[in-house]
């Protein structure tokens, strides 16, 4: 089983990755993709099939959130366990590189606490199941008029805090942190999608397409999704302000279609299910509207970049091969140019796999 592979030498290496049936689109990779997509299809549309598994988690669910387990609790538990188990593998594999150790531990803690234990606790005390680690537009409903007005105007202090937290994180923290650190503060340190991609997805990072055509497709897709979610949010606010407007009637159906196509099919079934075939960041690269917003800030108003060390690049291609976002890092490095790309999540693996010390993540 070379999928988990804990037996590694003193420094991070990729020996044999391209010969591995698991890691380089062999038969096991296809089977795993089938299992993963199948799991997502069952969670989203046929939860009754999972009932026996779900009921196994009843004791845990009662302990954590005070009610019986449902399929979403099963999904959250499997997800968090994957992050923790594969996070441990990640920590062993990259243990000589502190950047990876620190960010992996952070991702594991944020997933466990902010995206698993706190929502369960909130549900136990009977308030909204709220995720402090997700913001608009990744969770579009957090800025929908019905939700945000109820939170901000609530006389419950906790709910009011959630409302202000959402607004402050979206409007203030996101641009400020991205200006100083690039989108990595979120995409490599906080986000739950990143937590799974950087742990369970790490063995598959090399399967992302590096072609120019993939980059072109990516830009249309990711900005298209951002435009879509912005329009839907706008429509909902419009409908809220003027319920009689003819446009208002489109708002809810549009939101439901978005939820099905983007929220379920894209981010779940394709985004995670296709890890073994298309790499660990399919959703983050082609679909995530939050990544699109952060990317625009990163490209035009951020101090973050990957610096190329003079003329030391030997054009070996390790950086491009192991970039999970499909960036052709070498194309810049071999010309001695710094890399400033909207899609870069700042995972730092290009710098780690570089055999000549040519790449460095910097906030200049």
């Amino acid at each position, binding site marked *: 089983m070379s999928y988990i592979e804990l037996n590694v*030498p*003193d*420094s991070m*290496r*990729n*020996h*044999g*990755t*391209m*010969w*591995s049936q698991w890691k380089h689109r062999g038969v096991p990779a296809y089977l795993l993709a089938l299992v993963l997509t199948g799991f997502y299809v069952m969670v989203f549309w046929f939860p009754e099939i999972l009932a026996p598994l779900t009921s196994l988690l009843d004791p845990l669910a009662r302990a954590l959130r005070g009610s019986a387990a449902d399929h979403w609790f099963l999904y959250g538990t499997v997800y968090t366990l994957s992050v923790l188990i594969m996070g441990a593998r990640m920590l062993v594999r990259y243990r*000589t*590189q*502190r*950047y990876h150790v*620190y960010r992996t531990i952070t991702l594991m803690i944020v997933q466990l606490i902010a995206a698993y234990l706190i929502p369960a606790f909130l549900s136990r005390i009977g308030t909204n199941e709220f995720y402090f680690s997700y913001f608009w537009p990744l969770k579009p409903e957090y800025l929908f008029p019905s939700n945000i007005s109820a939170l901000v105007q609530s006389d419950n202090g906790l709910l009011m805090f959630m409302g202000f937290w959402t607004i402050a994180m979206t409007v203030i923290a996101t641009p400020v942190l991205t200006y100083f650190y690039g989108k990595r503060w979120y995409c490599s340190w906080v986000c739950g999608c990143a937590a799974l991609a950087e742990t369970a997805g790490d063995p598959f990072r090399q399967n992302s397409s590096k*072609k*120019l055509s993939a980059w072109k497709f990516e830009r249309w897709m990711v900005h298209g999704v951002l435009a879509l979610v912005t329009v839907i949010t706008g429509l909902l606010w419009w409908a809220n302000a003027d319920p009689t407007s003819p446009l208002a009637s489109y708002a809810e159906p549009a939101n439901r279609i978005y939820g099905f196509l983007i929220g379920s099919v894209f981010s779940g079934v394709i985004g995670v299910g296709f890890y073994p075939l298309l790499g660990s960041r399919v959703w983050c690269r082609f679909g995530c509207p939050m990544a699109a917003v952060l990317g625009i800030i990163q490209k035009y108003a951020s101090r973050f970049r990957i*610096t190329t*060390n*003079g*003329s*030391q690049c*030997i*054009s*070996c*291609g*390790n950086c*491009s*091969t192991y970039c999970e976002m499909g960036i052709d890092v*070498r*194309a810049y490095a*071999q010309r001695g140019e710094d890399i400033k790309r909207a899609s870069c999540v700042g995972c*730092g693996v290009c*710098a*780690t*796999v570089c*055999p*000549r*010390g040519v790449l*460095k*993540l910097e906030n200049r």
Partner: protein
Amino acid sequence: MGHMTFNDIKPYEDWFWKKNRIELKQEAVTEIRSCLGTELPRYGGTEVPSYCIVLGSGETIEADIVIFATGSVPAWYNWPGQYLPGVQSYVHRSDLDVLEANIQGASTAVVVGGGLIGVEAAEVLHSRGKHVTMLVRESGFYSNVFPAEESDFITKHIASYGIELKTTTELDQIVKGETNGRVDHVITSNGERIKADIVVLATGVKPNISLARDSGVATDRGILVNDRFETSRANIYAIGDCAQFSHGIQQLWYSARSHGEHVAKVVIQGAGPYSRGLYFNSAKFFDLEWQIYGVVPQDSNLGTSLFWKDARSERCLRICHDKGSVIGVHGIGVRLRQEVWTNWIEAGTHIDNAVSQLSKGLFDPEFTRGVLI
């Protein structure tokens, strides 16, 4: 090994060449002659040079300008048995295919030569589970280049992988097996017999000049060029490993790239002489990265350099100075910022100033433990 596929190694996608109006011909050139039927024209002649490049397929391409970038070929030294099956070089891509065939059924390998190619060949063979013995002419790894501490450092690292190092040892002859006609063992300059199913001869390279020489371009060890890469024949240039300047041959991986950039400026803009800039280099010895800028003399000592060695990991750094002015630096397991060290060395910065601002000169990833001198 097994990090990448051949596609991942290509520096550009396949559409790149056509888009940039570069026609790729994958063929051998058999002859370059003047299309006018005379000998190749020299500078100052009256006729406009026009060259006919004859390909292996018989096709002829006409060109006004020819640039030789024929690289190097392995330098072997007429050892008995050097052409036996199982004996090979490790320079070109085709050598990898030969190696892939040679390792089938092999269990022991001997690598002759302790240079960068030798180390890489040893690593590749080790990654395929072969027992590797290296014959190194010097008393330690790179000991003709590195100060003793660093040479010792690298030697121990390589040995820790189970690579058997025979220092102060050269190859005497390669001996054929009795049954299969392939290599069986080598005999060293010390008379020792070492079992070998594969022998990799990594004793350096020499310029590949045969085509230029046969076409009538002046050659010595390399193709003779001036500081604008001009050969003895009009509008014929030579760059990279195959070129020989008045001061010798520059066989460095990056000099080929900078020669290429400069010769384009010469041809297009009539640019002046090429200057190579401050020496730098880098390599990887198994897991150890090495970078150098400027001069780090082999006989560096505590009087002429500062040496730091990490107590907890395989990292070291040496900054060399001449009466206080920094002249060179190299690091093993420590990444160094080229721009900063180049500036310090070219400006003759005092070593105390360099040390007090050392973090500016480092290129290690964020959160890496610092270098404390």
